[in-house]
Every structure is written in structure tokens, then in C-alpha cells.
């Protein structure tokens, strides 16, 4: 069975480590915050200038001056810091964020990512995505393995304009956990009940399948 959005977030959360500074993109990445293991401390960075993003405010504490990069009203945790956009991207570009999780349209065997622009469709902009993929060492891309019409999103070459070149090493899809190295996707784990054949069929780029590919384990 393909993973649900919640399961995808849960699997990504297994990659968190105590003391990590993490930037979570919009969509599934945002859900990762709901699965931070008990007793583990993680600080969320929001690229509009907030390190230590907290939960949503109540109707009583809502404040127009306190938002996240998704423009949602949020709160700050104890020990948070707030700064300018230049400082925020100094952190991101300078490689100080430990983990970045974001969505994509496509990734390819060379670690390229396309996530912001579909030609002939209205282009809204890349926001901070290009800075995030260029600045982080440790990035997890979350997306469905194939489009609704069945076309693979794990390609030999991205067909869409890139967000970043050669910067992606880890991908979590609804079917599999994969790493990218030496011009190939390496199948590390599969979703419970999903066959290697299905993953092979839905992966257009070169796929390396090790002898043993364990199923993901959820607590």
C-alpha cells in the first residue's frame, strides 16, 4: 500500500536527530512537525526570519506580526530568535540548517530537482526553495512516486526547469525511501506491502535494487 501523507511525514521524522535545526516546506513536510519523537528536541526554522517556530496561536494570542514562511499565523517557542531575511538566508545558504524537507515535481539520478515551474502554466515564483536546496547538505524530498496518470517523477533527467542542480541525495515517495548516488536511485526501503516490481515500474531513472530491501517500520 502506498503511504498516506501522514505516514510519509512519519517516515521523514525518523530521520530527525536530537538538537537538529530543521526547515520544513509547505505540504507534507509541514506535517513532519507532528511526528517529532517524544523527548527529542528539534527547532524549526522558517525562512521569513524565525528560528524556533511553535504551534499555531489561539484566537486570543493570534498576532499579525508573527507568521511563518507559509504566511500562517504561528507562535515562537521559548529560546526562539527572530531576525531579518538576510540573516535567515545567511543561515540557510551558509549550511547551518541540519535538515531541509521539501516537496518536488521531479528529481533525477544526478540529484537535480524541479519543484517550482511548469512551462506554459502561471509561474508564481520559487520563493526560498532555490536557496534551500543550494544551501543545505542534508535534504529530503517528499513527493508521490508517480503522477496520477502514472508517469514517474524519478527520472534520468528532469524534464521541467530546475530548482537546483546536483543537490538532492534522499527522496521519500509514497512507495519508497531512496538515496541518490553515482547517477542512480538506490532503493533503501519500500512502503509496507509495496512490491519491488511496482517501484521498478514507476521509476524511470536508473534504479539499483540491493539484495535486501526492507519494508519501512512504523512505531
Amino acid at each position: 500500500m502506498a503511504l498516506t501523507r501522514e505516514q510519509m511525514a512519519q517516515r521523514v521524522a525518523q530521520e530527525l536527530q536530537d538538537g537538529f535545526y530543521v526547515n520544513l516546506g509547505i505540504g507534507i513536510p509541514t506535517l513532519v512537525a507532528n511526528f517529532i519523537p517524544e523527548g527529542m528536541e528539534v527547532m524549526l526554522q522558517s525562512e521569513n526570519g524565525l528560528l524556533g517556530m511553535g504551534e499555531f496561536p489561539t484566537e486570543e494570542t493570534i498576532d499579525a506580526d508573527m507568521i511563518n514562511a507559509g504566511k500562517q499565523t504561528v507562535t515562537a517557542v521559548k529560546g526562539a530568535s527572530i531576525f531579518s531575511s538576510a540573516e535567515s538566508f545567511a543561515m540557510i545558504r551558509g549550511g547551518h540548517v541540519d535538515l531541509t524537507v521539501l516537496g518536488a515535481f521531479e528529481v533525477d539520478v544526478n540529484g537535480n530537482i524541479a519543484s517550482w515551474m511548469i512551462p506554459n502554466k502561471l509561474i508564481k515564483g520559487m520563493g526560498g526553495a532555490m536557496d534551500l536546496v543550494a544551501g543545505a547538505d542534508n535534504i529530503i524530498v517528499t513527493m508521490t512516486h508517480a503522477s496520477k496518470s502514472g508517469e514517474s517523477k524519478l527520472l534520468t533527467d528532469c524534464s521541467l526547469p530546475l530548482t537546483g542542480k546536483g543537490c538532492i541525495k534522499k527522496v521519500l515517495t509514497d512507495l519508497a525511501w531512496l538515496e541518490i548516488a553515482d547517477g542512480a536511485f538506490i532503493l533503501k526501503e519500500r512502503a509496507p506491502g509495496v512490491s519491488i516490481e511496482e517501484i521498478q515500474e514507476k521509476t524511470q531513472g536508473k534504479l539499483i535494487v540491493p539484495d535486501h530491501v526492507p519494508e519501512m517500520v512504523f512505531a
Partner: protein
Amino acid sequence: MAGFDKVVTSYEDAMAGLEDGMTVLAGGFGLCGIPENLIQEIKRRQTRDLTIVSNNCGVDGFGLGVLLEDKQVRKMVSSYVGENALFEKQLLDGELEVELTPQGTLAEKMRAGGAGIPAFFTATGVGTPIGEGKEVRVFNGREYLMEEAITGDFAIVKGWKADRYGNVIYRHTAQNFNPLAATAGKITVVEVEEIVEVGELDPAQIHTPGIYVDRVIQGTFEKRIEKRTVRSAD
């Protein structure tokens, strides 16, 4: 003598000198920390053919979106646009030009403009459409793009508190691009919620030193919320 007193008392005075064809840098992220009254004054003036540098372009009827209504904007330099239908229409009709710039690069371009750095290198955008036509150079085995600084004829900034000397502090995440825009305007205008006595702000805790600021005005603000997300009270 006026000395360092930068307070003006009318929005007309605050934006005096703004002319057709100028470049205006605006602080704000989404609708958070935007100089809403200075934007309204630009609308009132009907200044045209403007280039606006701002992370976003407001929404229909609020923020920078109001400058689209009478087609005052020729070009937007932004990282993310299109939260407004009018923007989309003018873009498709070819009435509006957009230069999309990655958010961190945009912030750094403004900071560089204010700091006398004409250009810098960043890995952001290498191998993407943003890199087309830009110089690529390798440092320590990695490719970087050369990006040039941005300065403006005017910078319009929203602060929280300022003193008469133009020392400014920002409130929460309403800081965002504001201190960067403030450094890079030939004329920098800051509107704030409160003007405090000189000496009231802690010198070591000023976000924008007065040297960057030409005019300060006190206003009242709607502070519209773009995406209201709440949890139920515990």
C-alpha cells in the same frame, strides 16, 4: 536647525520627491510588516511606471496589490507573486513585467546594495533558469552565480518603534525584508506604530540605525492577516 530630527507629519511629505519611473524597495513578507500607508500614498499620488522590489506583491485590494489597480507598476522584482488575480491578469496581458529572484538572493541583493557591495557569488540558482546569462564561477570545486546588488530611489519600510533620529526596531517577524530595504534606498522612509523619545531605545538593540533613515512618520495600521491559522485554546 533640524539636526537629526527626521519626523514628518504627513504622508504627502513622507513620499515627497517620488517620481514616475523610479525604483521603490519595499519591506514586508506577504502582508506581514508591509508599509501599508506609504503604499496607499503612492496610490494617491498616481505615480506611474514604477519598478517595485518586494518579496511579494500583496493581495487584491491590499498592500502592493493596490498599485496594480491603476497600473502604476511597470515591473516587479520578487520571489513569489500571484496571490492576486489582478497581478495574474496584467502579467498575461503583458502590462506588467516580473523578474523572479530567489528569496535569499533578493535579501542579499538589497543588503549588498546598502553595504556598497556591487556583486557577490551564491550557489542559489546554478543550473536553473535564474542562472541563464549570469556568470558562473567555481570556488572550492563548486559552481556559483554572480548576482548584482539592488538599490532604489526610495525605500519604504514598516517599523514598530522609532525615535526622531530614525533609529528603528521591528516587531516579531514583521522584521523580514524591512531592515534590508532601509539600507538600500537613496531616500528611506520608515512608518512606525510609535515614535519614542531619543534615548529610549537601547543602543545595542537597534535594528536599523538612524544613518540609513531619511524620514520617519507615525501611522495607524490595519495589519491584515493573510492566512489565519489557529488551534483551539487548551
